[in-house]
């Protein structure tokens, strides 16, 4: 019955920064196929700055920390993923106001708030071939696993569902973002944002529970 505290969230951000840095070329290659070949460098640039926050400054609450992470992504990433991931963390921060120990219920609410932010910002629907195609099944899987009360199990289930959703983007025709200009030609490629979102959940499963 583990809970996540400020330290866990810091670990999450730092772990994810490491992952997207390592995978930057891969993410960029995915974006080269159907976008403008910058998703990896965007995420690496943004997350490197975000991961630095906890080193530069003493945080005393989860929501203050996540808010800064969100602001940092908004300010440093640009493109589509900056506002999307930025809004995700800003909204998640909002859900954690006053919460210092987040259990499975709080994390579930935090993720849902964050994803609602992504939808509010990007207006993507299921099947549009965006990061939302990883997030939507992930939320469902998380909720289904909540009954057990086990945060680790819920995050793992969410990450696995995200991976399945990510893989399913391969067969889709993009209807949002830059890839949509390609029309039919966007089919056959995995969406870069769905890939980086899956990585974020995998990282959460490693660090938050």
């Amino acid at each position, binding site marked *: 019955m583990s809970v996540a505290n400020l330290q866990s969230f810091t670990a999450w951000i730092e772990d994810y920064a490491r992952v997207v840095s390592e995978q930057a070329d891969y993410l960029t290659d995915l974006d080269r196929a159907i976008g403008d*070949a910058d998703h990896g460098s965007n995420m690496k640039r943004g997350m490197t700055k975000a991961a630095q926050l906890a080193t530069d400054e003493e945080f005393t609450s989860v929501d203050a920390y996540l808010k800064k992470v969100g602001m940092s992504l*908004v*300010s*440093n*990433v640009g493109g*589509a993923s900056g*506002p999307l991931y930025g809004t995700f963390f800003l909204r998640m921060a909002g859900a954690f106001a006053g919460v210092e120990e987040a259990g499975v219920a709080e994390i579930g609410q935090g993720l849902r708030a964050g994803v609602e932010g992504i939808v509010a910002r990007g207006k993507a629907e299921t099947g549009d071939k965006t990061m939302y195609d990883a997030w939507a099944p992930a939320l469902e899987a998380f909720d289904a696993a909540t009954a057990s009360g086990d945060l680790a199990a819920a995050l793992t289930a969410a990450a696995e569902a995200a991976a399945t959703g990510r893989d399913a983007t391969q067969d889709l025709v993009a209807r949002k973002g830059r890839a949509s200009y390609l029309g039919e030609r966007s089919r056959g490629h995995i969406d870069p944002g769905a890939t980086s979102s899956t990585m974020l959940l995998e990282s959460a499963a490693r660090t938050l529970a």
Partner: protein
Amino acid sequence: MKKLINDPADVVIEALRGMAAAHPDRLRVDLENKVVYRKDPIRSGKVGLISGGGSGHEPMHGGLVGLGMLDAACAGEVFTSPVPDQMMAATKEVDGGAGVLHIVKNYTGDVMNFEMAAELAAAEAGTEVQSVVVDDDVAVQDSLYTAGRRGVGTTVLLEKIVGAAAEEGRSLADCAALATKVNGNGRSMGMALTSCTVPAAGKPTFELAEDEIEVGIGIHGEPGRKRVPLAPAREVAAMLVEPVLADLDFTGDSGAIVMMNGMGGTPLIELYLMYHEVAQILEKSGVTIARCLVGNYITSLEMAGCSVTVLKADDDLVGLWDAPVNTPGLRWGV
């Protein structure tokens, strides 16, 4: 990659330094935020006009800042939307009490970053912000279920026309309505002879054979409608003008403002030659050309190619078009 640059990472900031050095009489460049401003602070009561987007499209937008046009332009990295911090800084700076209009090209990144900036500026400084999203590229299918058309050439004409309206003291609501009208009246289509190379990428964005052209290209080297064999100028002109005319009726009482735009690597001699072809087709189709621009205005780094923009322009629009403008990229009447 052959370019007149130093470190690819420094291209935007160094070009901004060059703009600052070249136009000290007219521009003020905030290098920290990468925002180009008019030299003089905004006149109280004038609507502030801001645009911005990825760099690499010069003179748009920084070179279109000045009397009768933009008040500020936010420069993103090459082909990458700027971030909300830049637009917020600009929004606060050019708020003369009459509100601020954001002119946004329809790319997901641009739209979302400008949106966040508008929300934040309204929350933080109480500035009234309205936005217009330009989506005039007929090469892209428009549909409620997609990201929609890209914003291209009409942006330049819109910045000129709405700039004149703001200069003559029209309100934020009027400027926004005018901007929406201009966007609705403008259509563009582009083509490429060669690719461009993003400095940070170091290699061409796409490959075109020596005997191929890409028709319907975007301004970031995004793919177009089709790849076809190299054709004579008069056929290329038809490939660009026909989809534009098919999309909107430009005949009737209003004339049209036409822009024959170069993508950056095409010399003027070819643009004039193309303009001759384009003007002939338009006239044969019953479109009266009221005004025109021939040159490099919305570019794609060193891409060779061109685009045509046609804007249906009634007397109000033509009058605003003719109003004085004094920017590095566009100047008359001053």
